[in-house]
């Protein structure tokens, strides 16, 4: 019941706060709730099927496509920079690189960082793009299942 009350109040409080934020250099989380990986799970395979003598070839790798849909409507006709962020995951070390169809920039990211994927004027309310993720993980530390939670942020100039 208390949670429900928060949910009602939050937008109201946020409206007040948003009005108090300076018009420059603000960072916002982008609504990408309509984004969806094309498969629920990326199956990673050993880059080298056999290990080395020195226990130094334990990379698992795999690929997965994600259709991302960014709701940029709140920042239409403004200029900003969009970042893909990957918070710390706390398990196996992971590196994710991606390619795009050109609407966003390609790049790579490790947990705890964010990487620029767009800079310039916001001219579309809904930006749709397909990211082809290439995922590398430390196979010596990967639990049965690990979740990588990405999100997008926007810095408004």
């Amino acid at each position: 019941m208390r949670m429900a009350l928060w949910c009602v109040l939050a937008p109201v409080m946020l409206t007040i706060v948003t009005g108090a934020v300076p018009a420059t250099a603000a960072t916002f989380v982008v609504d990408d709730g309509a984004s969806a990986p094309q498969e629920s799970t990326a199956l990673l395979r050993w880059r080298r099927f056999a290990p080395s003598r020195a226990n130094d070839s334990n990379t698992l790798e795999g690929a997965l496509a994600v259709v991302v849909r960014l709701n940029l409507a709140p920042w239409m006709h403004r200029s900003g920079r969009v970042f893909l962020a990957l918070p710390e995951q706390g398990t196996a070390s992971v590196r994710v690189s991606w390619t795009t169809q050109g609407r966003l920039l390609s790049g790579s990211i490790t947990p705890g960082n964010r990487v620029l994927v767009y800079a310039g004027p916001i001219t579309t309310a809904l930006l749709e793009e397909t990211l082809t993720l290439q995922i590398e993980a430390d196979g010596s530390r990967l639990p049965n299942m690990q979740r990588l939670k990405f999100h997008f942020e926007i810095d408004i100039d």
Partner: protein
Amino acid sequence: MRATPAGSTGIVTAGALVAFLACGQAARAFTVNITAANPKAIYLQVGVGTFTGGNYNAGGTPGNNTTINTVSVGVPAASVGTGVAQAMTTNSAQAISFYDGFTFCNTPAQLYIGGFYRNTTNTGAATVTATSPANLINGTGDTIPFTQIRWTSSGNGDAGAQPFPAGTFVGGVQTIGTISRNQWAESCHTFSYANTSIRPAGTYTGRVTYTLSSP
């Protein structure tokens, strides 16, 4: 859609942010699950083996080889039971390591034994065991204890301890060595017959089965 400041400009802002995210966080992230398609793999090769696509360091992968190699010695009549150990030889021609193609063993004096153990989680090392019968036996039922057969361990270019060290068959199940997680291990075994007692003439045979077990 409401824009959510990711930073805070004051106490009130922070409070509002927490409240908003608690309700709407699911719409602001996409999740990719990752898991290993083949989290565990083991490979054991005793004698000849098969690797396809080149050696390990060229991206090769191991195959199945059902060959059963023999290790044997013919003891001259004048030498039977003298206590002078008789060097045994193998019909295995596996001298190179599939790791890198290096000539690791010297055939026919040595028998290659090697393998690897893959696992994404740390549950300990894999273990190689050998199961030998109590005796070698000839066609008329005479026997030689398997404990008469022992081996030394080495490898060309190796200076340290061998993963599958020297030993003697026990006529039962015994540990030959271990393979640490996500490692390749290999040795070359040089067998000998202790020859400590006089035995009737004949061809004595017995089969040893090597097994690699992962935790």
